[in-house]
């Protein structure tokens, strides 16, 4: 089977960041993302960028993967850089000030993407689901079905590779019957995807149905024993470190 690891997919490993509790990582990611946008340029941004470098190093993530993850956004980022840098009205030319402003914004975006990548490639999907549930636990008092939500997230994460596998098989079967899915203009290609979509939806619904029945067979009601322990000392230290770093960046 063809197996392509998406840039943000979980990569098994035993780095420092892999070992941090998912709850701490979620909170740290939220704090760091807010900081990346709020920190004053240029000194604050430099502090935030330094934080990203530390995170990349501690998680064994290569900067190249960050660039790969950014690839889909490259065009938009490039356009925004140009739009801010090139002045067409008044005195046409290149505005250094605009370029700098735009470059700073792009750096902030790159930092957030990098941090998100570090998070998603070091945290197992069920741990993410579990962490989200833990952080939302107070909402349970308001009647939010937190347990069900966390299982839904976990199942959704499991279905992503299944769906892509399914798409691949359906396309194979159809191409073998002469369907030309990769040829012709945009319209033809799009309508070709329609042919894939119908069987895909049918098959995913069927599988979802069966999975739901299998979950019920295993007594799933939404209420589950929580497998979370207390935070370790190291985790608390990480949390404090992130808070101190965020304060530095904001006050720089």
């Amino acid at each position: 089977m063809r197996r392509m690891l998406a840039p943000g997919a979980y990569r098994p490993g035993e780095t420092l960041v892999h070992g941090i509790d998912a709850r701490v990582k979620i909170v740290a990611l939220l704090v760091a993302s807010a900081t990346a946008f709020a920190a004053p340029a240029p000194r604050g941004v430099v502090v935030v960028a330094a934080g990203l470098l530390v995170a990349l190093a501690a998680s064994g993530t290569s900067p190249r993967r960050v660039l790969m993850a950014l690839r889909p956004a490259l065009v938009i980022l490039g356009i925004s850089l140009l739009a801010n840098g090139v002045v067409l009205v008044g005195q046409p030319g290149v505005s250094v000030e605009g370029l700098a402003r735009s470059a700073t914004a792009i750096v902030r975006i790159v930092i957030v993407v990098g941090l998100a990548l570090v998070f998603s490639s070091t945290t197992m999907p069920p741990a993410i689901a579990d962490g989200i549930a833990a952080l939302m636990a107070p909402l349970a008092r308001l009647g939010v079905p937190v347990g069900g939500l966390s299982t839904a997230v976990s199942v959704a994460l499991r279905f992503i590779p299944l769906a892509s596998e399914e798409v691949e098989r359906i396309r194979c079967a159809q191409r073998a019957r002469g369907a030309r899915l990769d040829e012709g203009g945009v319209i033809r290609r799009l309508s070709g995807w329609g042919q894939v979509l119908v069987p895909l939806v049918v098959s995913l619904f069927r599988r979802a149905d069966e999975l739901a029945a299998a979950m019920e067979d295993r007594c799933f009601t939404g209420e589950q024993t929580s497998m979370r322990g207390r935070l370790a000392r190291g985790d608390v230290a990480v949390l404090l470190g992130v808070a101190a770093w965020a304060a530095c960046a904001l006050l720089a």
Partner: protein
Amino acid sequence: MIELSDVGFSYGTADVLRGVSLVVRPGERVVLLGRNGSGKSTLSRLVNGSLAARSGEVAVDGVASTPETRRAIASAVGYVRQDPRNQIVSPLVLDEVEFGPRNLGLPREEVRRRAERALEACGIDRLRTRMTDELSGGQQQLLSLAGVLAMEPRYLVLDEAGSHLDEASRAVIADLVRRLVRGGTGVLEVAHGPEALFGASRVVVLEGGRIAWEGLPDDFLRSEGALKASGLADDPLVAPLAELVRGGGMLGERPDPAALAAVLTGSDVPGGEVGRSGRHRLELRNASVSYDGLVALDDVTLACSGVTLLLGASGSGKTTAARTLAGVLAPDAGGALLDGAPVSAGEVGLSFQRPEDQLFADTVLEDLSFAPRMLGLSPEEADVRAHEAAERLGVAGDLLDRSPFELSGGQMRRVALAGVLAAHPRACVFDEPSAGLDAPARRALRELVSSLAREGVAALVVTHDAAEWLDVADDVVLLARGRVVARVEAKEAARSPELFRAAGMEPPLLVRARAMAQGDSHA
């Protein structure tokens, strides 16, 4: 004790089960046989409380199955399904096994303890930290079983749990189930083949929603009527097994090739019956394929004319080879040839295990005429081809205007096959075509493939059910780790267990028995 007394069930107005009474005691393994649509799955779902009987009563250890006792029944009766991928909830192995006990509200330490115990019992404790979709089909099914065992059920329902697995994985699961039964678990096993008979306490045959026969496995093999009602008469392993017990032999606890060898005669060795001239030829020449640095095919050269079986353990590159041959996967090096010319997508028919993967048009007729139209035929000619194919596969005329997704499983499969044949391909690739089919349907499929071969079509069958395809095959190609380890005539493979072992596979029982019948004591 699981007790069904005079149980009836219907979907809408269609009766699925009528007057079924059945008992499964602790420490007993009851095998439930029957053709597709005989009500086996419905019966097994009644037993674990996920369906409620329309009439009669279902009780587990004295607790009657009602909507209120659904949870209690489900926790007492574990249920393992056919397709492991549709019952795995979590992306992570350990988390998957903990899912059941967590739902029972057990304390954290107890959940951990049970999960570890179940992983160990299934022999997959070393996979604990792996991702579930990285596992092979056999490992996934063991994981499903572990997930159910962690709930410590008193009874177990296996709904054709081995039908998507290869011989070796089926043997591992059978051993595990045997141990559970010895430990006092009551098992109801829905089966589609005769392997389940070994060591069974009782056999129950369902036909048209009623119990047609019930008794001991040896008596089942002696009864023509029971064999016919269950559809198993069409399974190639059944005839020698029946001869064995009729001759006074015993079926025994587990498959015994030596006992079976005694009843096999030379005439049991199959062979291709047609000459080679006038046949089309599908080839793979020096093909290599790798995915992200992982080698799936390594310089593979093979040829197929007549019926060729492509066998191999899971992960051996079978499916990659099949797709390359069908022209839908471009190899990194080498290529696929049809009658000496490079294959392009659409020239070679490709059929998958699940028919719904292949259907996409709005109506059956459109679906059947799709491939001919893509070949450039006029709409009228394409319609003629579609009707011909429909007739050949027995697709009734009144289905042609329906949506293919409204059809029943069996009808859908016929439409999918007809859609492939409508293009009149010179070669066809069948990827796991028989998994999940009952014995008569599997036999019909084998007959279809051999009749195609007689017409000159090169037919490649990728399968984990080597035993039943050997009889209709001309050649066998065995793959292991992306390389061809053997290319032999089918009648050679049919008595050479060592070939299977060399490819890292478990040789089928019939192959081992034939080798023994010919005096090879290593079988």
